[in-house]
């Protein structure tokens, strides 16, 4: 990992290749060119590196994106366009990450905020503004570990899903299982599922609902025939890039709304548990990030400005 940013080696190598290819902030270059540069520098081929490159620009994957993108860089359901048809450049924070890695500025705790769960690691992502506030508090003087943990708060996934966690246990650095779930809201006579958990997607939700209805419900419901599968009129995927994930479920009648909501909440793409751990106390990590005071405020402001999804 990059010591000054907490980023993985591949992420740093992609940023360096982008810079070397001329993809400075505001100056787009073909993704294919960046991938070729990366291949020459590291031997990591385009087939392996393209998705990680796109991930660095995807606001539904990372709380802090490090690349800007032009072209179709994929969606939770769809793959990106060929790198021949896309362009990228460093974001302001991406440029700062490289500067930090080279020691030109102090550390920028991007890895601490983005976590590693998006690559099947166990470090959960955190809210950028809250982490910045905690670092500010730690740098400002006497503040207890308990208060730092309270400021940072619970993990915060870029999709905005709900998180249920034992924060005291998680902040101690221990192995913890957290529950991540989509938002299910009533809108007039139907249900709207949004803010999906990580690794879920609107199509996955839609398909799970269709399977649930067609297969007669889940096993525990089959053992109680009176419950049966939810009675639905239809399911619509209304996801757009602007509105974000949005799956609309129409119950057959108003009387079916409650039972449908309960059944949907049992589906894996809507709610599930994931194992996470920091491996060290959260307060210690915050104090470490606050240790380098030179230019700290500028670095924190940049993090806050970069948090946008």
């Amino acid at each position: 990992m990059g010591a000054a940013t907490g980023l993985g080696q591949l992420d740093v190598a992609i940023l360096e290749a982008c810079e070397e290819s001329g993809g400075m902030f505001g100056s787009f270059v073909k993704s294919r060119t960046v991938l070729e540069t990366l291949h020459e520098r590291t031997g990591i081929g385009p087939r392996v590196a393209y998705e990680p490159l796109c991930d660095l620009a995807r606001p539904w994957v990372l709380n802090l994106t490090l690349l800007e993108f032009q072209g179709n860089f994929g969606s939770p359901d769809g793959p990106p366009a060929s790198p021949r048809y896309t362009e990228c450049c460093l974001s302001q924070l991406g440029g700062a990450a490289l500067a930090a890695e080279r020691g030109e500025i102090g550390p920028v705790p991007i890895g601490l905020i983005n976590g590693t769960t998006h690559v099947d690691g166990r470090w959960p992502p955190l809210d950028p503004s809250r982490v910045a506030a905690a670092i500010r508090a730690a740098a400002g003087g006497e503040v207890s570990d308990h208060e730092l943990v309270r400021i940072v708060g619970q993990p915060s996934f870029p999709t905005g899903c709900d998180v249920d966690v034992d924060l005291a246990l998680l902040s101690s650095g221990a192995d913890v299982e957290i529950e991540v779930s989509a938002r299910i809201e009533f809108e007039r006579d139907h249900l709207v599922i949004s803010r999906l958990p990580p690794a879920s997607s609107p199509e996955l939700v839609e398909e799970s609902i269709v399977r649930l209805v067609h297969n007669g419900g889940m096993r525990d419901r089959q053992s109680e025939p009176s419950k049966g599968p939810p009675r639905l009129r239809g399911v619509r995927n209304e996801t757009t890039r602007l509105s974000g994930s949005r799956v609309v479920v129409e119950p057959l009648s108003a009387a079916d709304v409650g039972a449908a909501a309960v059944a949907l909440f049992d589906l894996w793409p809507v709610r599930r548990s994931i194992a996470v751990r920091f491996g060290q106390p959260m307060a210690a990590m915050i104090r470490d990030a606050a240790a380098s005071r030179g230019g700290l405020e500028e670095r924190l402001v940049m993090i806050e400005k970069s948090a946008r999804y």
Partner: protein
Amino acid sequence: MVEPVLDELVGAGCRFVVVGSAARRLLGEQVPVNDLDVVVDAVGSNRGPVVEALMAVGGVIERRRGRRLLRSSMALPWEWGWRTSTVYGDVDVVVRFIDGSGYEFHDAVAVPVLLGNGVVVRCHPTKHP
């Protein structure tokens, strides 16, 4: 075999322009055609006809969890475009190129071409940089 796809697009009333190698071939240039690139008007009223036309030629779309038959209810990346595999070959549905050009630009410089089956399509013979 781009004619059957173009036939469906025209029949469905889609607003589109053929670009790339297929357009050059239709205009008489002897170039290999690996796929069909069409720039479509992405306004709401044109989206349904485009999807319906591609469904009619067995449109399949690549998704993260494998290939799926194109459906009218599918959420598609209309901001930029997507690739569909049809029974007649691959079709790149382009809404906007990375140079910012879209349907209006390509339609303004396109020329009409009469196909063998009497269908007229608009073509702009672009080349990849």
